């Protein structure tokens, strides 16, 4: 079907589809697990006191956290692709997730000797996301500065910067792990693997707060971001205060990435695959891609995590969803890279 420019009706229709996909993903994710459930069984079990408690406290927290994480990473990916004018940008690929991991780890390392006992848990819940936020923002600003060539961050420059930053961040996290107690180091290791399991409703609530604020902020910026995707000069010609909008978009994107990385660790490629899928479904308009990526990304990660749980009987251990998305996203990334470089070679 031929594409047409974005109108209010087309926007609402796309978002309605996104909501339906998101709801369907949520329902499927609740039913997926080591022991699969039919939807009707899941509904019945919710009213049961013991099984319902397990479903609500274990599986539903995972599903909701997975949804928040998928939405945040996908929206951040869509925003980064517009900001860097690069379809291969993704919080993980360009190193923003790595920066958040370093920031979060650093916060843990600094606070561990200072705090002990019951207070440390609460303070860690606050300082870890703040550290992750500072880390994500720093990397984003550094990458833009390092990779920017004549108003456009070239694909190769962004990817190289991302590779360097990721390697640097991982090395830094490894060094920082040596500075903490053995059990803290072990939990940091598990955190870095990328998982949405074992979280409480309280943690889900805190993550939800970060993601909601970041998501609403990015949605509000979607109009200027669509213009920034045409280049800084073009955006300025069309009435965008480029530096102010760019700064706001960096702050909002970092908030989303840090909010989820501080809880779930590094989950890669969701922010690359989902915005691409949305571009195929709804076209390249950033105004629809940012919210639609949020909805579809929520469904994608909820379902991926559901399959990770379903694989428990196969591996007899938890299969981290981060590994699942990377196994899926790696080949997709290579296909997109080949297509992107091919189209640019053709253009020359």
């Amino acid at each position, binding site marked *: 079907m031929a594409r047409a420019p974005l109108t*209010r009706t087309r926007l609402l229709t796309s978002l309605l589809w996104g909501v339906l996909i998101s709801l369907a993903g949520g329902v499927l994710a609740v039913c997926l697990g080591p022991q699969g459930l039919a939807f009707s069984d899941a509904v019945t079990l919710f009213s049961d006191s013991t099984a319902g408690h397990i479903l609500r406290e274990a599986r539903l927290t995972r599903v909701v956290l997975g949804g928040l994480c998928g939405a945040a990473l996908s929206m951040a990916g869509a925003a980064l692709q517009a900001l860097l004018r690069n379809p291969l940008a993704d919080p993980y690929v360009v190193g923003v997730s790595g920066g958040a991991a370093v920031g979060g780890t650093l916060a843990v390392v600094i606070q561990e000797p200072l705090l002990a006992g019951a207070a440390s848990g609460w303070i860690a819940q606050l300082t870890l996301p703040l550290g992750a936020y500072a880390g994500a923002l720093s990397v984003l600003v550094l990458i833009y500065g390092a990779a920017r060539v004549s108003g456009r961050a070239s694909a190769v420059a962004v990817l190289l910067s991302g590779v360097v930053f990721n390697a640097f961040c991982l090395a830094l996290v490894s060094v920082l792990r040596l500075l903490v107690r053995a059990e803290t180091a072990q939990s940091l290791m598990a955190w870095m693997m990328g998982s949405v399991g074992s979280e409480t409703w309280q943690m889900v609530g805190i993550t939800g707060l970060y993601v909601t604020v970041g998501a609403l902020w990015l949605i509000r910026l979607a109009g200027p971001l669509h213009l920034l995707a045409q*280049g800084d000069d073009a955006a300025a*010609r069309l*009435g965008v205060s480029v530096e102010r909008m760019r700064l706001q978009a960096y702050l909002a994107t970092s908030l989303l990435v840090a909010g989820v990385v501080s809880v779930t660790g590094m989950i890669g490629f969701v922010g690359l695959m989902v915005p691409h899928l949305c571009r195929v479904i709804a076209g390249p*308009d950033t105004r629809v891609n940012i919210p639609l990526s949020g909805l579809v990304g929520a469904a994608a990660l909820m379902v991926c995590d559901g399959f990770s749980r379903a694989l428990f009987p196969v591996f007899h251990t938890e299969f981290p969803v981060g590994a699942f998305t990377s196994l899926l996203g790696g080949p997709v990334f290579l296909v997109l890279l080949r297509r992107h470089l091919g*189209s640019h070679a053709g253009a020359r």
Partner: protein
Amino acid sequence: MSVRLQVEEVSVRRGATQVVTDVSLTVEGGTVTALLGRNGAGKSSLMLAMAGLVPLERGTVALNGVNTATMPRQALARRIASMGQDERPDDELLALEVVLLGRAPHLGAWGLPGPSDEELARNALAATEALPFALRSMRTLSGGENQRVLLARVLCQGGEVLLLDEPTHALDPGHALRVMKLLRELAAKGAAVVVVLHDLSLAARCADVVVVMDEGRVISRGAPRQALSKDILARAFRAELSLVDVHGHPVVVAD
């Protein structure tokens, strides 16, 4: 009141290089002004300064007496529409979507266009003879077609001042002439039009005023027949050129 864009003693530095030096210029509504000069003479930098897209080292640009540096970006974009020399919009966008971007300064934060905006965009595409490929992606367009789409975006933006950096450089002679005719029609309706051109004959034929630049400074200005003397052409282009009459039209030829 007729629109007036005043450039007063403007200097622009890009990196370590002084690219525009003490340029003063007034552009009036109802006229077409052509900026001429060899490569690197400072024309594009002056255009960017007039559009408020580069910081000024010195001087001011005023729109109807109001310093443009003090105007909000969106308000300025409603009054000054411009296109750059080498703009490359997202190549997955449709031509019509690119033209609709011109409505952004007139719409809310999200810039979602309505039916009246789409009608304006289609009219602008028709004016630049780009309507037949309105629903094609930018990736599939030739350089000249891309340029006509960008020009349509400027028309759709609808400012009182139009700043166009080499709007005809990728166009064939027929399209170039018709684009200049279109710009003259817009000027006749009150717009102040400034174009950077390398086709001196086209400039001499279509512009009311030509401004010749060399090494960041204005070295001549006025009606084409007066401002494009043999000496000025030699100084500006380092070549022996003359303006002659062919069938009553001024044409620049090599001696």
